């Protein structure tokens, strides 16, 4: 124990003596460990931390799954009939609840407001083990068709909109235009399933539907003594029996998995972030190992004396490792401080994007992780130098002059490794940034960036008749078109062509091969009002645009983009040809009445089919588009006033320019790319420091040689070339290794590149140039200094 205390004391003294080394080491450790702990705390919070429910590990998520019908990585819940089957047949669960997140319009004394809410079955809150703060939960009586409409409020909504007045219980508010009685308020922060702040019973709003409408989430609590695997097995058996009875259940099975509600981030993102910070920490370790090797070389005399005086090698290693671990634990403590700042920033940035049950904080698990990483890091960067330094040839070391040149192959290899890792990170960040730039690049062919856009959601029960929504939109557009400052006003809605299966997602075209039709088929058609093309400045190429005569009941018509028409009908006129917007035979034939210009996105023509908005029936969500004669944002008050004048309970959402919308859509990707870029920049800085250290150390070791060479006629450029040559070889090897590593790694991370190729030669070339220039500076500084060596001093030092 005394020895340990003495080691610790000596380590502190030694670190205090080498202040520059200690500061550099502490800062790089703080950043390296801090980045790892931050990402760990994110992953922990998002993927591993227990949900805030009693016995959360007994909760399971029940869902359907199909290897053939689902796109890769797509998730699906179950249908209403599916939920009923499970509820009635499954024996593994004490309770089963269904839910679906939905937006609601609430109105009453205050302005209309859109609120994120959910339909939940009566069993849901009890099975989660969550009691209301005020009032009561839903009962089976509430949760049945024909029951009196009731609603539960989230605590935040209760406090904000109703001033926290307990008398709200029993009062009536309008939800989607229908009066509902408030029966309870849920506790603070409870927003099940993710972002809901208001709940209505499931059955009255969700019952019915076909088995193919697999929209609902299902949560269940396992009975005592039933494991997830047992429940899973039972779900498969039930699915098999359903598949035998119902054709639409063929190719589908069911699963029970530990309840996580949803994947907040894709697994590959965790992997990439953990990989990036892991690389950063490895570079930190390599760097510090290099610095410690150099320090060890400088301390060989001291260590030789200790050994000569009877110290064992083990004691010397322990002595040196104590220093490394003290450093890394202190660096880890600083890193934790950085983590707490980073988490605060992330919390602010992602406040409305992270589900409520995710608690981002530095908890006990994170602390244990930070301590563990610190100790492992200390061992990682300290062990090799300690082992190396503890085996000097005592006799030779004590006899040798201090300027004997010792080549450090290990340090060179460490620097090559650092450079390669930095290159991989930089290439990863580069490819990622390029792919973000690619997806964020505006399409060509139409002019929409300066349009004002806003969303209408026709949630109120009275809009169940789609013609009412049609009429409302038409009235709003008519008033907007006449408002001052408005050049064009139009609206569009998405009309999905297909389901999840690849085969379902195809149009059919008369006179065109089905494989050709599939190759140009969009996923959805746009239901557009007559002024849409003018608003977007999308030119008409042939035929006519939509007009007021294209309405429900008249001949169904469509417009497609020019390229799609060319491909489908091989350059012949598409006018008068017919298509079906989907693969089902039951769909009506739609006649092509015109073609419009192509919209090119990322060098690829995106195919679009347009139908008259007036002929669509799925128009719960409608987007307004307005072109102004000045600043588009100046139209915001006008739009709000016009919408309110038509329907005071209809909120207009996300009112912004298309440019703003795109920016906010891509912000998470940009943030992600920038985070990776920051890691890469830090990695390069570290690698440059490491390279600088090796070259400077080498130059210092060669002082005498340089002096001799200068005396023998070497000029500054000769000395610079000599010293830089060694560093240059390391850089070259690092870049080669890094390029190979990048190609391998980016292949693995292909899924995260938004369709970009992982082998991006311009990015690789740019990355190699950036790394080379940084490395050149790191080499040039010590090489230049070496060239200024006074040969007299150098030779005298011998």
């Amino acid at each position, binding site marked *: 124990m005394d020895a340990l205390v003495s080691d610790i004391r000596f380590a502190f003294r030694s670190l205090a003596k080498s202040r520059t080394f200690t500061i550099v080491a502490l800062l790089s450790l703080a950043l390296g460990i801090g980045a790892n702990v931050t990402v760990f705390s994110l992953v922990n919070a998002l993927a591993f931390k227990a949900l805030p429910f009693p016995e959360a590990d007994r909760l399971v998520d029940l869902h359907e799954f199909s290897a053939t019908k689902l796109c890769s990585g797509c998730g699906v819940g179950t249908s209403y009939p599916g939920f009923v089957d499970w509820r009635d047949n499954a024996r593994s669960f004490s309770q089963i609840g269904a839910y679906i997140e939905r937006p609601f319009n609430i109105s009453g004394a205050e302005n209309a407001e859109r609120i994120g809410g959910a339909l939940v079955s009566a069993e849901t809150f009890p099975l989660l083990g969550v009691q209301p703060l005020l009032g009561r939960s839903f009962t089976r009586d509430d949760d049945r068709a024909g029951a009196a409409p009731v609603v539960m409020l989230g605590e935040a909504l209760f406090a904000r909109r109703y001033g926290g007045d307990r008398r709200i219980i029993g009062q009536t508010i309008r939800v989607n235009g229908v009066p509902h009685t408030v029966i309870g308020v849920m506790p603070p922060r409870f927003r099940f399933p993710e972002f809901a702040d208001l709940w209505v019973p499931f059955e009255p709003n969700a019952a019915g539907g076909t088995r193919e409408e697999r929209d609902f989430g299902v949560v269940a609590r396992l009975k005592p003594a039933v494991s997830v695997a047992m429940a899973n097995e039972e779900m498969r058996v039930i699915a098999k029996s359903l598949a035998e009875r119902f054709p639409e259940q063929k190719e589908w099975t069911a699963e029970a998995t530990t309840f996580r509600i949803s994947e907040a981030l894709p697994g590959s993102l965790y992997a990439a972030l953990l990989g990036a910070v892991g690389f950063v920490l490895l570079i930190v370790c390599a760097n510090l190992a290099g610095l410690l090797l150099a320090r060890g070389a400088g301390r060989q005399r001291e260590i030789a004396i200790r050994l000569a005086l009877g110290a064992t090698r083990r004691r010397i290693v322990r002595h040196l490792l104590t220093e490394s671990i003290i450093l890394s634990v202190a660096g880890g403590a600083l890193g934790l401080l950085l983590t707490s700042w980073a988490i605060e920033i992330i919390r602010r940035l992602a406040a409305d994007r992270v589900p409520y049950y995710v608690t981002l904080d530095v908890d006990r698990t994170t602390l244990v992780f930070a301590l563990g990483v610190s100790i492992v890091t200390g061992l990682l960067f300290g062990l090799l130098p300690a082992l190396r330094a503890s085996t000097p040839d005592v006799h030779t070391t004590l006899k040798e002059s201090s300027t004997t040149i010792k080549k450090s192959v290990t340090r060179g290899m460490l620097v090559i490794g650092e450079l390669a890792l930095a290159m991989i990170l930089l290439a990863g960040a580069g490819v990622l940034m390029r792919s973000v730039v690619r997806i964020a690049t505006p399409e060509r062919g139409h002019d929409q960036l300066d349009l004002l856009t806003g969303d209408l959601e026709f949630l109120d029960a009275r809009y169940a008749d789609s013609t009412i929504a049609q009429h409302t939109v038409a009235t709003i557009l008519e008033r907007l078109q006449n408002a001052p400052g408005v050049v064009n006003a139009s609206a569009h809605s998405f009309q999905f062509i297909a389901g999840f299966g690849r085969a379902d997602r195809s149009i059919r075209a008369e006179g065109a091969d089905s494989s050709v039709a599939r190759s140009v088929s969009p996923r959805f058609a746009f239901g557009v009002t007559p002024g849409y093309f003018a608003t977007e400045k999308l030119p008409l190429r042939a035929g006519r645009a939509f007009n007021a005569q294209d309405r429900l009941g008249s001949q169904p018509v469509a417009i497609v983009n020019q390229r799609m028409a060319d491909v489908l009908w091989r350059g012949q006129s598409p006018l008068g040809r017919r298509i079906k917007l989907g693969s089902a035979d039951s769909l009506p034939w739609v006649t092509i009445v015109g073609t419009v210009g192509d919209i090119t996105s990322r060098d690829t023509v995106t195919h679009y089919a347009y139908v008259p908005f007036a002929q669509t029936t799925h128009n719960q969500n409608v987007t307004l588009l307005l072109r102004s004669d000045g600043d588009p944002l100046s139209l915001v008050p006008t739009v709000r006033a016009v919408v309110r004048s038509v329907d005071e309970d209809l909120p207009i959402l996300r009112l912004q320019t298309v440019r703003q919308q795109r920016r906010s859509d891509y912000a998470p990707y940009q943030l992600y790319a920038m985070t990776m870029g920051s890691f890469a920049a830090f990695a390069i800085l570290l690698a440059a420091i490491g390279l600088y250290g090796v070259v400077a150390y080498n130059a210092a070791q060669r002082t005498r040689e340089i002096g001799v060479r*200068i005396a023998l006629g*070497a000029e500054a450029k000769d000395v610079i070339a000599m010293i830089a040559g060694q560093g240059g070889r390391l850089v070259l090897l690092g870049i080669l290794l890094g390029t190979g590593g990048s190609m391998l790694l980016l292949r693995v991370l292909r899924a995260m590149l938004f369709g970009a190729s992982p082998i991006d030669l311009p990015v690789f070339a740019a990355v190699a140039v950036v790394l080379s220039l940084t490395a050149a500076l790191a080499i040039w500084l010590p090489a230049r200094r070496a060239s200024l060596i006074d040969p*007299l001093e150098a*030779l005298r030092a011998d």
Partner: protein
Amino acid sequence: MAFFTKPATVSRDAPPAPIVGPLIAMRNIEKVFETPAGRTYVLRRISGEIQPGEFVSIMGPSGAGKSTLLAILGMLDSAWNGEFFFLGHPVHAMSHKQRVGLNKEHIGFVFQQYHLIDDLTVAENLDIPLSYRNVKRSEREAIVADTLDKFGMVGKKDLYPRQLSGGQQQLVGVARAVIAKPKLILADEPTGNLHSSQGREIMELFKKLNSEGTTIIQVTHSEENAKFGHRIIELKDGWITGSEGPVG
């Protein structure tokens, strides 16, 4: 002692045209260190000439300024005052680059500690001065081979310095000093680390090189070694306290 008139202008890039006369002419060379305790003179008013083909020994006690004077003559030291002409070129008025050029063209060094490069073989050590003098690789190989032959070291060309005795190492040091055919060899206690018979061999070698026309200036503590030269310059406390010769 005759001195040369300083030329009116000196190009910064190229040495001015040589003027025939002594190899070295010094006038009032002084080297001084400023210390908190005041000025410390290392060399005081050193003046004199050395003619081409001379073999001069600089002697004196430790700290007399011998090695400093040698470094100034070898243009390794530029922090001094006074006038120093080398082959008529005013070294005191030259840029660093010009001095390096003059050094490269005309001067070879032999050090007490040999100063061979540990990681290079004998042949590679000999190649160093040539590599800094724009000599083609093929020519360099031929010159190195000739020199190895001349110094009887062909069998040792692939050995590293640590595999040689002190005498052999110094032999390589001398060979390296002469390989670029300098007009002047500056030797700082060339036998200081050698035992007497090895030292004598090196001195004989110097004498032979001198007889072939190379000017040699050596710093030595050894009266015996000094006798190999024509003249002795004695230094004490930075001053020239005596100059005698011809000797031997």
